[in-house]
């Protein structure tokens, strides 16, 4: 197994493109929150304590409308409910960690963090605490620091739409979804999840105003998970790496001795 510092570095390198994608949103959050008459300190503390982008936008929006506290908290729970599924799915990865390490893992459990962890287990290197923190800390520091910068009025980064940066996260998530395609019932899970999410997302157009975002994430996700629970499991399909392994495994002994 690689050393801890090397694992930390691997994580930090892997997160770099995501840091680039999150940066403009952090500035945008700080800017929007300061327009809601929140101070730089308030915005910084909020990003540092909650660390959940989409739900922070929601909380600021509702706070500005002077809605009651419980309604703000329930809305934030609705946006963040998917994290319950993430931490459940990560149980086998974090079981061997110490209590304190697990507490840290859950604090930093944002969408790309979870998806990258699952992908790393899938690809082989496996889950290590050092790798996880190497991925987590640059992202966290960026989120907090650039929310503060945005709040302080620094339009550091122009409109993310000018470049393709606003689509970097959807593209990254889609690439990871495709990376899970050898998992049992993947096709059915993805189809049902996408169809349900789109229906829930578009539901307000048909008068169902209690649906719509952010419910499409939770409801679509749960629909996809139920498919995997209900259908009998598929035997794992051979991955693309398998034939290569076989070739090297059956390499002629003469070839091996020649090296």
């Amino acid at each position: 197994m690689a050393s801890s510092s090397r694992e930390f570095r691997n994580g930090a390198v892997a997160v770099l493109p995501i840091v680039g994608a999150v940066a403009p949103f952090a500035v945008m959050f700080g800017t929007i929150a300061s327009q809601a008459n929140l101070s730089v300190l308030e915005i910084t503390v909020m990003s540092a304590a909650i660390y959940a982008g989409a739900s922070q936008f929601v909380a600021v929006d509702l706070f500005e409308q002077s809605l009651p506290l419980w309604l703000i908290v329930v809305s934030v729970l609705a946006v963040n409910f998917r994290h319950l599924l993430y931490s459940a799915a990560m149980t086998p990865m974090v079981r061997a960690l110490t209590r304190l390490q697990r507490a840290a893992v859950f604090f930093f459990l944002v969408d790309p963090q979870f998806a990258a962890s699952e992908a790393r287990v899938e690809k082989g290197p496996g889950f290590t605490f050092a790798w996880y923190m190497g991925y987590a800390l640059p992202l966290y520091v960026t989120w907090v620091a650039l929310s503060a910068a945005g709040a302080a009025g620094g339009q550091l980064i122009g409109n993310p739409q000018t470049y393709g940066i606003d689509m970097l996260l959807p593209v990254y998530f889609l690439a990871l979804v495709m990376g899970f395609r050898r998992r049992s019932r993947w096709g059915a899970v993805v189809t049902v999840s996408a169809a349900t999410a789109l229906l829930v997302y578009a539901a307000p157009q048909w008068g169902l105003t209690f649906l719509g975002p952010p419910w499409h994430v939770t409801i679509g996700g749960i629909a996809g998970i139920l498919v995997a629970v209900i259908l009998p499991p598929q035997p794992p399909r051979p991955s693309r790496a398998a034939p290569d392994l076989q070739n090297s495994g059956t390499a002629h002994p003469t070839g091996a001795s020649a090296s």
Partner: protein
Amino acid sequence: MSEGFLWVVFWCAAATYAVRAGGYLVLSRFSTIPPRVEAGLNAVPAAVMTALVAPSFISGTWREALVLCLTALLSLRAPLPVVVFTPVIVLALLRQI
């Protein structure tokens, strides 16, 4: 810092941490995970990430939809950095048109 906003931050942070730890706290009570539950957990990343991304296919212009299709195609062959950056560069170019 206004006291009202401080409470908003406190409770939203507590609620967010509770859901982030909650799934593990429930699951760790099982000594063995039932096969159906395991099948469901195995599907979590694909199911939730798909639900997150799905609206991006319809909420933008044809450019965003096209670029997402390109991502899916590339991911069948290319390594992750290529899969992620090619569509973003293509999108930046398409928006100049």
